């Protein structure tokens, strides 16, 4: 199934763009903007707005139509959790039944990243958007170390409390600082021979399952994730491990 953007007619390929060019505003700038959009593969390009941002920069709004398409049928997405996500009560019941012990989870926002709201949303009592956090799950024992936590310290803590899962939050992504930091975390675990001991999840606004798995995590959780997603993921993995080992 080949799909294209839609303005008001199927396959019209209509797209809105806005961008800045490092040239003054004027007819020449507008023509440059038009050509640029054409080069991206658009036809019927309309540069509908231009304005000077300063003497050497100008901004453009353009609409164009393109034949560029994607094959929707061929798209594969792997989310960390599948269609079945346990509610809080289900999660607790499954732990009691299938694992028969409390599950220990340690989490932190690592490196120099000071954003606690994301990890708090997952871990604290209150949760987020009317989704309770892991702390409220009777069958979980949770430790939220807050933000600005060095990778080393998070690992030490996880070892100390004999954690089943470690949750890493990363919100600042500028210059890919999250990738560096997340990679370092995994390398540290590996260096200490601990990678297999924990289920390791990463989360944050710009983090998806794909990226996290690529970086060596078990799962990744982006925007719109709630405690129940991580809980489901952790529980299912623990059950899996139990069955396998």
């Amino acid at each position, binding site marked *: 199934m080949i799909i294209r953007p*839609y*303005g*008001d*007619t199927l396959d019209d390929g*209509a797209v*809105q763009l*806005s961008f800045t060019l490092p040239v003054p505003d004027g007819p020449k700038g507008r023509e440059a903007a038009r050509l640029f959009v054409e080069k991206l593969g658009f036809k019927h390009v*309309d*540069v*509908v*707005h231009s*304005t000077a941002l300063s003497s050497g920069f100008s901004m453009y*709004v353009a*609409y164009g139509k393109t034949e560029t398409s994607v094959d929707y049928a061929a798209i594969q997405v792997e989310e960390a959790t599948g269609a079945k996500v346990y509610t809080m009560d289900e999660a607790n019941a499954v732990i009691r039944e299938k694992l028969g012990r409390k599950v220990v989870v340690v989490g932190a926002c690592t490196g120099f990243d000071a954003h606690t709201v994301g990890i708090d949303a997952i871990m604290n009592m209150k949760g987020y958007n009317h989704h309770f956090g892991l702390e409220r799950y009777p069958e979980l024992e949770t430790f939220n170390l807050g933000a600005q936590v060095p990778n080393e310290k998070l690992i030490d803590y996880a070892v100390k409390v004999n954690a089943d899962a470690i949750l890493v939050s990363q919100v600042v992504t500028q210059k890919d600082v999250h990738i560096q930091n997340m990679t370092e975390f995994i390398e540290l675990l590996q260096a200490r021979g601990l990678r297999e001991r924990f289920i390791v999840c990463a989360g944050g606004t710009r983090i998806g399952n794909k990226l996290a798995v690529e970086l060596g995590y078990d799962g990744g959780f982006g925007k719109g994730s709630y405690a129940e997603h991580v809980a489901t993921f952790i529980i299912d993995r623990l059950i899996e491990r139990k069955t396998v080992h």
Partner: protein
Amino acid sequence: MESKLALSQERIQKARELATSIVGPVLDFVDLHTTVTVERATLRLAGADGADADGVPVPNLVVDQLKGRLEDGALLYYVNALVKTGGTVADLNARIAGGLDVAALPLGDRGTLEAKAAELVETFQRRVKANRAHREAKQKQFEGRNHSPLLYVIVATGNIHEDTKQAVAAAEQGADVVAVIRTTAQSLLDYVPYGATTEGFGGTYATQENFRIMRAALDEVVEREGRYILLTNYASGLCMPEIAAMGALERLDMMLNDSMYGILFRDINMYRTFVDQKFSRMINAFAGIIINTGEDNYLTTSDAVEKAYTVLASQFLNERFAYAAGLPPRLMGLGHAFEMNPTLHNGFLLEVAQAQMAREIFPEAPLKYMPPTKFMTGDIFKGLAMNSMFNFASKLTGQGIHLLGMLTEAIHTPFMMDRFLALDNAKHVMNTMEGLADEIEFRKDGVIANRAKEVLEETVVFLEEIDGVGLMPAIEQGRFADIKRPADLGKGLDGLQKKGPGYFNPFEDFLKAELGL
């Protein structure tokens, strides 16, 4: 509603008196005349429908056959043919489409014709009353589920089947009113095309079948969303009363319908427009259809600050014409617009003054508030902010029907995404600042109160001027929107017809009686 502007009731009263005086002579003229489209509309109310092989609609075929005899009323001949041919209305329509010349049939006994016509009126009134009852029942059933003001969006793909998709999506996104914009220049066609259509420029043909298709699509959403969705079209242009008739039959809920728009902005002859307008409004009134008047057009053409009084003056005239056609205030969607230059210092205050003034002068009318369009540019970001301000002003001043501004107004007719963003913005802004209207009072003698007072005063002066020269001469002199329209020029003049002594139109009689005119 408590008054925030403390406008002089005496000046408001004065303006109303002037409007009555101005409109009077026009109404006298109207009462003596009919037009080709009034006749065709009457035929449509009676059931005339269909088209011949060339696409000429049956009502047009009939009226064309009656050259020279129209003063008797076209219905006389249609009913005569019905009686003479002895079949159903549908049979007759088919015969006419096939070539039957109703003018060629000898006229039967007047009493028989009247009786037959009375049957047709009966069928008509049952259908329209059922429509009204259905609308009222649904509105009652889903009371409180519409937004206030009603969120109004347009669809304009040119293809009725695409339009329904867009309309359904919009309704799902929260729209309360969907208007199907007409194709460019349909207002200048002296016939209404027949059947479902899929080709239009910047809009879709208004046809009865298109009305039906859209109504059915929206009715499904009504049940799914638990919200009555109002459907709008244009009883405007050369076929004003016919479209009103179609709307009444197919349960439209609103119609763009202005007493002078066609004259000024479409160069339609003024006699023709005034006659058409009255009949169309009687139909709307009976069908419970809210009219939307076109005052916004004054502001898209002239400066909104300078010419603010033309809006108020037109609202008074439209109100008067509406009363004369039996429309109660709750069906008077008097128009105005948020069209001041966004760079104007304090402009928002003037906008609020205008909107609040309209609200207080026409407390029962579901005012139709139009978004910024003229100063919208390709800067979609600024456009969105302008629309946000408009949404704010509308909620703050308690408008009734709120046309959503599109961030791409200066670029194209709305993409599905543009409409969504507009709805989302209106819901966001209006929800977060709801209640502000009840929180605030305007300073006596402040910018807002003074501006409203000033515009009202200018309006009275302007109406006095018009009253002095007469409405039609005033239009000839270009006193409205700086546009001069000679009384004996303009499109459609040849369709004007003095009623004869034996003019036969039981539908008109019925409507007048129903509406207490």
